[in-house]
């Protein structure tokens, strides 16, 4: 009897937890269809905010900037991160521990610390122009370590005898890399990209520090909409899109994974 009660308490807390995580976004999504210009009371159904959202060129420009930055970041960070993950797993070299510890830094130190440090560094020491170059360099510093850890996690589950077999059968290093190693690493590369893209697209703090003037990404633009009360009601619609897109992405990815398991 007592045990049952405990189970109920757990269930109630779990429901509260999920409601807390999802409630605000779902409610906001629903109210994005209300004609109230503050988006906080239900007047009548309308989709006009969505029309306005897609016609506001400043928002669309910001989306494009964010997409550019996230794409470049994903390509560069996944490449150098996956390589390094492979190296850390396969080779023993001096400085290995130092490297492993220092890639923990950007992940564990608060964003504001790295953001401040990078701003000072870019403007006073190496003079990387604020805007696209600075944002992309900063984003790679943060996301490459993520790719390293994902790769390291995946590598333990890979059958490396295939690589040895390829070399035994006379393939040189490069051919082995292209024909064996990279295909083996593909799932890790894919997971890294899936994790890094939204991270880069959504980042606010680091981008805010190193963006300079005129390179407003979507999060930066949303922030200015809130700060200067420029039609914040439009953000209601954005929140629904932000929740729908990853959900659809997950459904697609998980169904793809199921497919690939079936074919195997």
């Amino acid at each position, binding site marked *: 009897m007592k045990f049952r009660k405990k189970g109920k308490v757990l269930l109630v807390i779990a429901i509260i937890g999920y409601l807390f995580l999802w409630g605000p976004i779902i409610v906001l999504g629903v109210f994005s269809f209300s004609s109230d210009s503050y988006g906080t009371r239900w007047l009548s159904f309308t989709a006009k905010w969505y029309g306005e959202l897609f016609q506001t060129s400043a928002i669309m420009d910001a989306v494009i900037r964010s997409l550019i930055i996230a794409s470049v970041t994903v390509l560069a960070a996944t490449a150098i991160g996956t390589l390094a993950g492979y190296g*850390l797993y396969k080779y023993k070299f001096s400085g290995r521990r130092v490297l492993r510890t220092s890639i923990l830094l950007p992940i564990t130190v608060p964003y504001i610390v790295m953001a401040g440090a990078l701003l000072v560094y870019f403007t006073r020491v190496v003079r990387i122009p604020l805007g696209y170059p600075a944002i992309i360099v900063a984003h790679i510093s943060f996301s490459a370590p993520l790719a390293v850890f994902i790769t390291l996690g995946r590598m333990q589950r890979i059958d490396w005898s295939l690589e040895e077999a390829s070399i035994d059968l006379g393939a040189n290093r490069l051919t082995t890399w292209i024909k064996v190693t990279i295909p083996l690493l593909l799932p890790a590369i894919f997971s890294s990209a899936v994790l890094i893209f939204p991270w880069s697209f959504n980042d606010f703090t680091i981008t*805010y520090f190193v963006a300079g003037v005129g390179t407003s990404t979507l999060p930066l633009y949303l922030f200015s909409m809130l700060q200067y009360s420029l039609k914040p009601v439009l953000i209601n619609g954005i929140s629904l899109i932000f929740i729908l897109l990853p959900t659809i992405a997950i459904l697609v990815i998980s169904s793809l994974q199921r497919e690939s398991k079936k074919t195997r």
Partner: protein
Amino acid sequence: MGLKKFFIKKKANLSALPVVGPLSIWILLFVLMPLAVIFIISFLGRDITGSIIPSFSLDNYRLLFSEGSEYAKAILRSILFAFATNVACLIIGYPMAYWIVKHGGRFKPLLLLLVIVPSWSCYIVRIYALKQLVGYPGILNNFFLKIHLLASPVEILYTAPAVVLGLIYIWLPFMVLPVYASLEGINPALLEASVDLGATPAARFLTVTLPLSKGGIFGGTILTFIPAFGDWLVPLLMGGNKVWMAGNFIAHYFIVIGDLPLGSSMTVFLTAAIVLMIYLCIKLGGEEAIERIL
């Protein structure tokens, strides 16, 4: 022999170079160097306008902790808020993870995704959503006023509890995940053994489950306490300009005032406090705490 060993090591070094080289250089140039630079700047002098004077000085740190320093208060406030966030995330997050492990069945992956997905949407949008819900004019206030459950609007925004609420909202998922991972890793045979030996469910939880999930708890603590401690956007949006945390001072001194020496010393102090926290978490939670955050 020694020479041979040296050569073997050297060879391994060389073949590792093309794969780990790019990241090593990148981390050195764009992570370690920037941190070193602000560390150095924090020990340089500054004139009244906040420009750097190239001479060694401890004045920045002295200024941070002088009588009635707002930054010192903000550090204490940040510790308090982060601690409250951490405890609240544990109180909600631990049972959530426990419930998923016990009753999730084949829906476990889906239930976990439902915890993670909200954290994939933009931070700003999420805080704004929370603000629209609990603020005034806000959705809850409007609703309760309309059905006459409230006589006058309740404004909780721009207070300390509102900031903590925002922090919990943002960082909760990062407590659930590591706790889930460590609970899932517990060998069920241990739980059965404790029941066979006559442990009541409560005793079993306290003597077996809880100690074995220690790594997850401290891993989750690293993932919630530290970002909450260094947060500046939640206090800015949920607290207005009234409830500043340490991060708000850093942003203010770097971006609004442009006082690099003082901003740097604030950043260095914040980082030092965080390194100490991580050290304590690893000391208390063991190596597993580190594993669980990755």
